[in-house]
């Protein structure tokens, strides 16, 4: 166990270095590039007025040398202050608190569903390797990997909203409903906590399409890993031994192959969550879902440094935490790794 604690300690230190690196890189990037926040945020008329422009730059500290800006940012960061968005004129923390739950509300169910579906399909494909079923499953995965996410979202919106009319046209709630009192920031859960069943139903109804699209996108990526990991296990000596000693196939499948298929899911879950957030940018854009992706997009367009930093820091923290968790779980699931 001390080895495990040591590992966690080491990882936390490298996580802090990584986060520091993120701030440096983002800061450096935003200052060396030609983009001018004043030009992106002020109207042409205001921009042409030197006084207004100077006032804008003074207000956001853009007139200070870059290291002063950076030092200020880091000091504030330690106070839990991520700065103020030039775009929304609200503290970044407040913005994030609003947008992150919206994205988690679609990303978390999508991730869970994707894992369940990918493991199930991967197992079916691996145990029937070379069959038509396997071919079909691989084909679906391939199509998923080759489809532009935004296009898939658009096609789904066309089919299920425009043609069939079974889902709403994007957004988080219908106009008839007010958001439930904020507890988690996820409308569906909050409505549940507040006992507002009609709001809950409406929120879930709005979730169907984005969650479905994100699930479909993640399944195709994950499926490859699960399938190939399971095929590798099926070729292993101990499976041969298990078959030879007459264990029923079902026992082998569930006791050995299933477990082995979960390992790659663990390994890639950090990457997967990152790519889910990436996919969310595009899907949120199509379905006008006011989440982190849209926030990042708008911040990037208006060169809102503080907001971009806030988003990237959040993603880097999540990514690092997931990877840390994965490594800890790994040492528990597979003791050979901890021993090294």
């Amino acid at each position: 166990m001390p080895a495990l604690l040591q590992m966690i300690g080491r990882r936390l230190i490298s996580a802090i270095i990584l986060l520091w690196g993120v701030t440096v890189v983002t800061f450096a990037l935003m200052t060396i590039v030609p983009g001018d926040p004043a030009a992106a945020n002020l109207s042409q008329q205001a921009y042409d007025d030197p006084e207004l422009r100077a006032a804008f730059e003074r207000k956001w500290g853009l007139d200070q040398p870059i290291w002063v800006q950076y030092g200020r940012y880091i000091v504030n960061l330690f106070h839990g202050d991520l700065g103020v968005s030039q775009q929304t004129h609200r503290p970044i923390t407040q913005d994030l608190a609003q947008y992150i739950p919206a994205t988690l509300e679609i990303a978390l169910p999508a991730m869970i569903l994707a894992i369940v579906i990918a493991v199930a399909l991967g197992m079916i494909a691996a145990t029937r390797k070379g069959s038509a079923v396997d071919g079909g499953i691989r084909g679906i995965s391939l199509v998923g990997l080759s489809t532009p996410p935004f296009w898939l979202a658009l096609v789904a919106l066309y089919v299920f909203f425009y043609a069939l009319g079974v889902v709403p046209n994007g957004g988080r709630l219908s106009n008839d409903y007010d958001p439930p009192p904020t507890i988690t920031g996820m409308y569906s859960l909050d409505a549940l906590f507040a006992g507002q069943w009609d709001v809950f139903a409406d929120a879930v109804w709005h979730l169907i399409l984005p969650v479905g699209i994100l699930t479909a996108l993640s399944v195709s990526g994950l499926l490859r890993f699960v399938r190939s990991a399971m095929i590798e296990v099926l070729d292993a000596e101990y499976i041969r031994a298990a078959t030879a000693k007459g264990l029923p196939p079902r026992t082998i499948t569930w006791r050995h192959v299933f477990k082995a298929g979960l390992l790659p899911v663990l390994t890639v879950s950090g990457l997967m969550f990152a790519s889910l957030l990436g996919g969310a940018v595009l899907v949120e854009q199509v379905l006008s879902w006011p989440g982190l992706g849209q926030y990042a997009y708008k911040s990037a367009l208006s060169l809102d440094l503080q907001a971009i930093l806030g988003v990237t820091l959040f993603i880097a923290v999540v990514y690092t935490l997931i990877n840390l968790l994965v490594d800890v779980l790994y040492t528990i699931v597979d003791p050979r790794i901890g021993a090294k």
Partner: protein
Amino acid sequence: MTILSPDRLAVAKTPRRRGFRRNRRFTPRTSFWTPVTVISFGVILAWVVAAILAPVIAPYDPLETSGPYLEAPSGAHWMGTDDLGRDVLSRVIYGTQLSLPLALAIVVFSLLVGGTVGLAAGYFGRAVDNVLMRVADLVLAFPQIILAMAVAAAFGPSVGNAVLALVIVSWPLYARIIRSSVLSVREQEYVFSGRLLGSTTLKSLVKDVIPNSAGPALVMATIELGNAILMLAALSFLGLGPRPPAAEWGAMIALGSQNLGNWWISLFPGLAILTIVMAFNLLGDAIQDYLDPRSRNARKR
């Protein structure tokens, strides 16, 4: 082999239980040309030809109004027209002239940058390796599209900046793969022999290390061609790619998203992306299988 008694022979001949047949040893394919690779190659070739012959085969000018606005697919406009009356088919065909060369540029530049970094990290090891790979990890900690979006927005939307942004987000993949093959190659005896025979570092790198460690990266480059097309389309979908009115597939799909009822505007460019990316993916997988059947599981995204 007469040791097997008839009853044992019978056991040996009964088909193994369904579902466990894959236990048989892997038999490497002798030819690279399977129906799948032929079709994939054909699809890619068809798109390349479309790019080269675009002025000849496209029925209309992709940037000019050539018919009524928002016309559904018809005899005159096989894929319909968009909200400015431009012919969708012509724009899809001309789209190859952007997507294909740009994807190639993204992959080549990423390969050069990532290859150099990976080579340095793998060959020199120690501090060089540590610093370079930490930077690579840093870049990989971001969702590709978010980082690319931030970079492209910061530099201002244009073709060149979209390519630059995508090179910035994708070089670490090549750096990693090159580094790991260099790590194993540099321990080979021929590298030591070369050094002992008086090769300089540069000569050793160029003559011994690079040719023997480039394979996996080149395979990945094939697959990444498809990915580059996808990412480029995503950036232009967000308005961070080629400026309008350029006929770019992602931008065309974005146009269709504002005219949901006119499905043909975004359906066809999407299918174009799907077919060519799928062809690259299939071809990349096939090359990987052919060169090293056991590496199939190693590919990480």
